């Protein structure tokens, strides 16, 4: 084993350029495959989630403005009058229908005490608390009616990421009272712009207090609203109110229908992703085959010398395989670092990556076995 490892390391450095190309190709292919698998597993999860809540989702709608302005746009500056219309409409739909909404807000400087820039703060209303948070609470409780009244302490439901740092009842920065901690890996689907589940582990939810609503960025209010509507008359009632306050009228996108449309829109994208990944995979296998042959021919005589001098074929196979194993380890480490730092892919994608790497290792192992037999 020691001899095999020494041989492997010396071979690794002798073919440093070839091995660098192989490592990068393997890294790129693994990443592509992971992205595709991640996408499909998210899609499967959202389908499952929607099916489990079908009775609710059949009646749940997103509100889309009919004007050219459509919904919230980061590059647009909203007039005070327009923002007030959002607040009025929000109050109307919250008062007459079930409207659940949660949206990200900017952190105050003192919020950083929760754990720095990686913490996300979300406002949520009472219906969101009842429909989404309640079922995902690990300890404590979700928000109650009293939490939605202004007071000196703001109630907060923290994701599992804060469980080690804070307990229910803790007061953070004399400002937030932790009333609940969410289960590990809790998530929900917004279904507004994409399929990706919103991971709640690093989110701190605070109540969207109606009395303070003028102080929040109200441009988000309608864009993030999910309204449960029973009939077409409800659509009309909302649009009549929009006319009344001189706001744009709305189209109502059913959540299930929205999902179907998103799937249709993304079909081309998925096709391209699959094609790209398959191409990468073929390139990887081709390069591996060619490079492995080149490397082997280049050092055939050296391996014969080792064999003559007393190395077993097992040792030679092991040395060749260890070289590939080191490449695999490097590529896998790169993928994991990129994933942890930027992508945050799900467990299914990581499992798929591991299976791919094992299959690749078997492919290489078999190839090396045939080559070593030639000695």
């Amino acid at each position, binding site marked *: 084993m020691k001899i095999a490892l020494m041989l492997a390391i010396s071979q690794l450095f*002798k073919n440093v350029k070839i091995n660098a190309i192989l490592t990068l190709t393997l890294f790129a292919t693994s990443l592509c495959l992971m992205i595709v698998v991640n996408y499909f597993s998210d899609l499967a999860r959202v389908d499952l989630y929607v099916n489990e809540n079908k009775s609710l989702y059949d009646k749940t709608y997103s509100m889309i403005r009919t004007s050219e302005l459509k919904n919230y746009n980061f590059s647009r500056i909203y007039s005070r009058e327009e923002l007030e219309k959002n607040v009025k409409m929000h109050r109307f739909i919250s008062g007459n229908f079930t409207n659940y909404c949660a949206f990200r807000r900017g952190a105050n400087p003192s919020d950083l005490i929760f754990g720095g820039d990686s913490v996300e703060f979300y406002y949520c209303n009472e219906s969101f608390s009842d429909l989404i948070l309640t079922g995902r609470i690990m300890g404590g409780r979700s928000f109650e009616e009293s939490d939605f009244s202004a007071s000196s302490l703001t109630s907060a439901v923290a994701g599992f990421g804060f469980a080690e740092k804070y307990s229910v009842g803790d007061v953070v920065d004399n400002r937030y009272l932790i009333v609940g901690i969410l289960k590990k890996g809790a998530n929900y689907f917004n279904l507004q712009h994409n399929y990706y589940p919103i991971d709640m582990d690093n989110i701190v939810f605070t109540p969207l207090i109606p009395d303070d609503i003028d102080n929040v960025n109200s441009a988000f209010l309608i864009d993030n609203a999910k309204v449960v509507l029973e009939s077409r008359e409800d659509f009309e009632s909302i649009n009549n109110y929009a006319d009344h306050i001189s706001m744009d009228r709305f189209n109502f996108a059913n959540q299930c229908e929205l999902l179907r449309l998103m799937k249709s829109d993304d079909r081309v994208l998925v096709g391209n992703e699959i094609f790209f990944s398959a191409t990468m995979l073929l390139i990887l296998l081709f390069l591996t085959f060619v490079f492995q042959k080149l490397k082997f021919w280049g050092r055939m*005589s050296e391996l*014969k*010398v080792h064999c003559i*001098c*007393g190395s*077993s*074929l097992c*040792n030679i196979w092991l040395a060749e395989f260890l070289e590939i194993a080191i490449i695999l380890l490097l590529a896998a480490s790169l993928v994991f670092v990129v994933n942890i730092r930027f992508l945050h892919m799900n467990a299914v994608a990581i499992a798929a990556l591991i299976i791919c790497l094992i299959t690749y290792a078997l492919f290489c192992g078999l190839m090396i076995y045939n080559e070593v037999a030639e000695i």
Partner: protein
Amino acid sequence: MSELIKVASLTKEYVYKGGSTSVFNNLDIRVGFGSFVGVVGVSGCGKSSFLKILAGLDLGFKGEYFLNNINISTLTNKKLASFRNEVIGYIPQEILLINDMSIADNILLPAKYAGLKKSPNDYLWFLAERLGIKTLLHKKPTELSGGERQRASIARALINRPKLIVADEPTTSVDDQNIEIIMKLFREICVDGGSVITATHDANVSSRCDIVLDFKNIK
């Protein structure tokens, strides 16, 4: 004389798509300790195949091969490698040296595989001096002539003091003066109780052997 090599019904066939070719059939050979055996025959008659089997590098044969009373077909891959390292010194037909290593390191490679705690430097110096490569030990194989590399290859085969030397045309690229030196060295090994089996086309070499196996007749 006790037996170092006992070969019984040895047959070697090369199988290819749609058929097979037999190189030699049912060879029965016994070689005692201290023998100097020459193997002669035209190119392609199976000399190298036979020597590779004797060197334990090819197990794809029919029949039995006992070396030092051990049936090498029964050894595991690892044990066979260790046995080869300890008992057999093989000099291949093509000069095989690792170009990244110095001549000294190349010669000492079998000793490293044997895990010798005591460095065989004295024997390395002895062999290098006898084979006329003492001043070349620090050089890389690419800096040497064909004959010098061949002598380094011979020194490598001898470094572990094996009981059996299997040499496949070891004097091909060596001048007459060095052939004398190599033959003398081989003879000394036989006198010390080891055995040498060498394939050759050179009548000068075969004439010095105790026994000559002519593969033309054997086949």
